[in-house]
């Protein structure tokens, strides 16, 4: 079965992208990001956000100076921070009239076909309604060591479940993005928002002209090949 391009884009966001150097949440950056993503959605693309940040926001909420290190405490802090995180996303997307949904996943759903199916159904239905799902790892119940990786692997998992066309990687600095298509094509670094929309359109056209049978997203962020 050939995969058609569905204009489906997974956007990976690290909380550090949305924070000041001192770790405090940067509302201005969040505002800008949610505007760009609402626009992307309005332009006919399906957008899925994969965002970290529960532990950082939970730490801040509890007034702790440093992030906790024990697994138990991190999980508790994550449960507090996830509620904050989703509230922030709702608040800013709301301003652009964009409805969001919260999806919390654990890695092991891949081992359970019923759960994969359930998750796919949820994503397909949400995207079909023009809603942006905000995905995070369900840290509070997850069995994997939390926050060990850079959340690219969660973005990759979501891309595989949803058969996404592109993983969009938000860079730490300013407005830079990496566009990684689902073929073995090289990734593209774009500097500004106009270029971002043009490049995404171009990538989607490319994908439409030659539907691939397999997903080819790099398995880790280090494997991404920029040209």
């Amino acid at each position, binding site marked *: 079965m050939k995969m058609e391009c569905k204009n489906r884009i997974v956007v990976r966001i690290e909380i550090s992208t949305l924070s000041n150097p001192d770790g405090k949440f940067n509302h201005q950056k969040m505002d800008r990001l949610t505007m760009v993503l609402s626009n992307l959605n309005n332009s006919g693309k399906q957008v899925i956000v994969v965002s970290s940040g529960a532990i950082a926001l939970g730490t801040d909420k509890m007034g702790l100076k440093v992030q906790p290190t024990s697994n138990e405490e991190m999980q508790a802090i994550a*449960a*507090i921070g996830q509620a904050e995180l*989703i509230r922030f996303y709702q608040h800013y997307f709301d301003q652009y009239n964009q409805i969001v*949904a919260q999806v919390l996943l654990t890695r092991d759903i891949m081992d359970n076909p019923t759960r994969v199916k359930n998750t796919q159904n949820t994503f397909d239905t949400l995207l079909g309604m023009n809603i942006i799902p905000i995905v995070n790892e369900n840290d509070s119940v997850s069995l994997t060591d939390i926050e060990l990786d850079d959340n690219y692997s969660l973005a990759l998992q979501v891309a595989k479940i949803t058969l996404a066309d592109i993983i969009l990687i938000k860079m730490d600095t300013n407005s830079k993005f990496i566009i990684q298509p689902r073929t073995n094509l090289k990734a593209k670094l774009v500097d500004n928002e106009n270029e971002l929309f043009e490049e995404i359109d171009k990538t989607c056209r490319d994908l439409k002209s030659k539907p691939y049978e397999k997903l080819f997203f790099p398995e880790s962020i280090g494997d991404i090949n920029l040209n």
Partner: protein
Amino acid sequence: MGTSSLTYHNGRLNFQRIATLAYVLSALRSRNLEIVLVSSGAIGVGAGRLGLIERPKDLAKKQALAAIGQAELIKIYQKFFEEYNQTVAQILLTKDIVTMPERHQNARNTLLRLIDMGIIPIINENDTISTFEIEFGDNDTLSADVAQLIDADLLILLSDIDGLYSADPKKVKNAEIIRTVKTITPELENLASGAGTSFSTGGMITKLSAAKICADAHIDTIITNGNDPNIIFDILDGKEIGTHFVSNGKKVVH
């Protein structure tokens, strides 16, 4: 807290009730009682957010609405609890907490830790990946599983049902509420199997099985009407409220 207690008959949120609930639970925290809230209502809130008049029947649609509504619901809880300076946390669970020992331990650690920090965890089923409570339980079973998980002393099930009746009160005029249940007999289960409500998936039968899970774990259960969350104060004062399933373990009530 069942869907029917959080919403009006048209499915829209009853903010006054949520505000009262937040007040009551925050007040109990001030008395040093440890509180975990299991709340339904995500699908209803999601439908409200999208301006849908009817609740969808299609399962995938319900899951999508739950994902939208859960985000809204936790925001609303945060708002009301913050008025009482009470921090909350969100935990989305699946049946794994019962079936997988490692996940059981993990969820337990997280919840106990949160309670220790003085936080009220707000729990719901993770409807995106699991659909059991959407289809059957309106969180009745989940709340019993959670009560067992954290060695709770008492489970209070708030819904639009006043308690367990000697007969279906809609059909039998002089049906009486059963105040105390010491053993859940097959006769009781038979009695309960008819009485569901149209606005939530949980009927008396899932509440009874929740009470059974708790009884086996030496936890008392009280089934009562959630119209006025202040009723929780009365329960803790030892007044006769709803139907009290007495376990043979420790007791906090009376």
